């Protein structure tokens, strides 16, 4: 079976702990700086490129010029990218620690499919047409499927393959339902084909305010779980001996992951692989300590998401490639690389 953190990543030549901590802290600051740069790029680059001083003007001295309006539009998109990226990264890191499975990813676990099925139900059978209306259905669908995969995957005895297969199976079943509805209802097809690829372009301030509470609660919960999850990585028995409450930690972790991923999916549509890739990359230089993995994931995931969004705007000018497509095309090969790197005995 797959186990967390392959040995070569753990076997660093251990330098003195204080020095290492300093390096990690500096790394965190550098990451924040990179994030700021990417966020500025996300505001500046698009169908109409803006110079940096125009961005500055729009951000801090908004006087209603054309440039300022563009900045305002792109600002909400960037903010949503920041929030959703952080949420996806955190939920991925928590799920990977919880299942002790480096392949866990909210998209792979069928949470996205649950959200999609709920949204298409809302459009076709309940007549919901506004994006803000979708949010709640997507959220409910994600939560229901998250719970179902967790149960079918074997809850406490979940193994990587079982969870991945349970997620895939449920995704496949829900996908069939999705298609049946789209065949019968052209209006649903018209809306869903854009929603299901995952995009930041529909961001408005209203949506951001609606999902913000979930992002905050989920993030706080996820960061607070770092220590008990650390204990659980050492195995159930050791964790118990160290005083961790296994069931409570598991339930809270699943809750945090579902709230975060559900909110991100509700706001942007299903975006795969951000939650898989970033915690992995992070772990390769922080080691297995979740107290570092989680903050790093929360900062670097938006870097990836906004970066992919900017890339999608550059390659398909003046139209754009939805961010969900860019992340899947970038993330798929990484996933396959990860699968290949493991020895057969472990798989």
């Amino acid at each position, binding site marked *: 079976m797959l186990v967390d953190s392959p040995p070569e990543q753990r076997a660093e030549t251990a330098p003195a702990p204080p020095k290492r901590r300093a390096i990690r802290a500096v790394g965190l600051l550098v990451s924040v700086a990179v994030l700021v740069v990417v966020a500025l790029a996300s505001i500046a680059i698009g169908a109409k490129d803006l110079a940096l001083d125009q961005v500055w003007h729009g951000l801090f001295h908004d006087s209603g010029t054309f440039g300022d309006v563009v900045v305002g539009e792109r600002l909400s998109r960037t903010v949503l990218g920041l929030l959703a990226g952080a949420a996806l990264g955190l939920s991925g890191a928590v799920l990977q620690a919880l299942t002790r499975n480096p392949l866990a990813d909210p998209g792979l676990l069928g949470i996205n499919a649950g959200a999609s099925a709920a949204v298409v139900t809302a459009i076709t059978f309940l007549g919901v047409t506004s994006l803000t209306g979708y949010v709640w259905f997507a959220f409910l669908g994600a939560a229901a499927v998250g719970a179902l995969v967790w149960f*079918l995957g074997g809850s406490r005895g979940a193994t990587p393959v079982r969870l991945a297969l349970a997620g895939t199976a449920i995704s496949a079943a829900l996908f069939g339902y999705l298609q049946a509805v789209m065949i019968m209802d052209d209006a649903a097809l018209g809306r869903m084909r854009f929603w299901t690829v995952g995009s930041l372009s529909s961001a408005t301030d209203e949506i951001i305010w609606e999902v913000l509470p979930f992002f905050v609660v989920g993030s706080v919960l996820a960061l607070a779980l770092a220590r008990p999850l650390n204990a659980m990585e050492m195995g159930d028995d050791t964790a118990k001996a160290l005083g961790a409450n296994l069931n409570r930690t598991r339930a809270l972790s699943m809750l945090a992951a579902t709230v975060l991923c559900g909110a991100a999916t509700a706001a942007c549509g299903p975006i795969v692989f951000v939650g898989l890739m970033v915690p992995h990359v992070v772990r390769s230089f922080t080691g297995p300590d979740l107290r570092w993995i989680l903050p790093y994931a929360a900062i670097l995931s938006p870097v990836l998401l906004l970066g992919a969004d900017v890339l999608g705007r550059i390659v398909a000018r003046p139209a754009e490639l939805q961010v969900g497509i860019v992340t899947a095309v970038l993330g798929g090969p990484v996933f396959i690389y990860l699968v290949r790197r493991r020895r057969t005995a472990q798989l």
Partner: protein
Amino acid sequence: MKTNRAVRSPGGLSVRLDVRTLVVVVLLLVAALAASVVLIGTGDFEIPAADVLRTLFGEGNASQEFIVNELRLPRVLVGLLVGASLGLGGALFQAISRNPLGSPDVLGLGQGATAGALTMIVLFSGGATQVTLGALMGGLVTGLGIYLLAWKQGVHGYRLVLVGIGMSAIVTAINGYLLTRADIVDAARAVVWMTGSLDGRDWNQVWPLLALCAVLVPLVLANGRGLRMMEMGDDISYALGVRVERVRMLLLVAAVLLTAAATAAAGPVSFVALTAPQLARRLTRSPGPNLLPSLCMGAALLVTADWISQRAFGADQLPVGVVTGVLGGVYLLWLLVTERKAGRI
């Protein structure tokens, strides 16, 4: 009843007969043919089963001849062949990956074929022939890609499944992109194709599929013995004289070809490849790959599902893939629960 008998000839030749499997195969064949006859009689112009049989043997009147031989018979034959190919392909994939969920649906072959077909529909506005060719190419390229990427001193079952899941995600994203590029008419056509449909299939689809099956099915069945040994593990199979990697490659190529051809003919009809081998296994109560029973089960399932979709929703309202999808989904969840209780996956 003793289910295994060995038949020995005086010259020292012997063959093992699994009576239960034989009975199951015969019954499934009868069921598939009976369902076909009923399906031929179903539609806007109902024909009683007796008349269908008479017409098939060349003694019907002119209008029945036309309806049966030109319109409905090819459709039903495509259904039978597609079901059989999917059932056999699914059984092969599941045996090779040693996983009841390792079907072509999960591995992304259907998605790959869809990408090929969507490219033709959306980018080139291709007709039926181009779409079929595109789907065939897409399925083959995806299958080849999964095999090569999963290769690392041999192909291991779980790695095959996981690489397939990754591949499927990439191709799904590409499909999503193509769908957003299309105008709404093309998109609607693409979604119908993506669900799998037997609507409007004629003799042009029957012949290539029949030829492919005529070559591949005997080839696969001849290698079934090696596959059965391989379920005991690679080392034991080597010791028993099976050239494991060669047999595995041969059968994988056959499975990819069967699945891609079936998908090209009818679209990615979901879940037949997944459920047929599992149902067949439960009927024969025999471990091992159950290749022939899976083939018959696939054919019976697809034709029955097509009949249900015509009966329940009216002629040509919903394509057959929706029925197989819904039935398969329910079955899959049940499978996951029971397999979990049995501690197998």
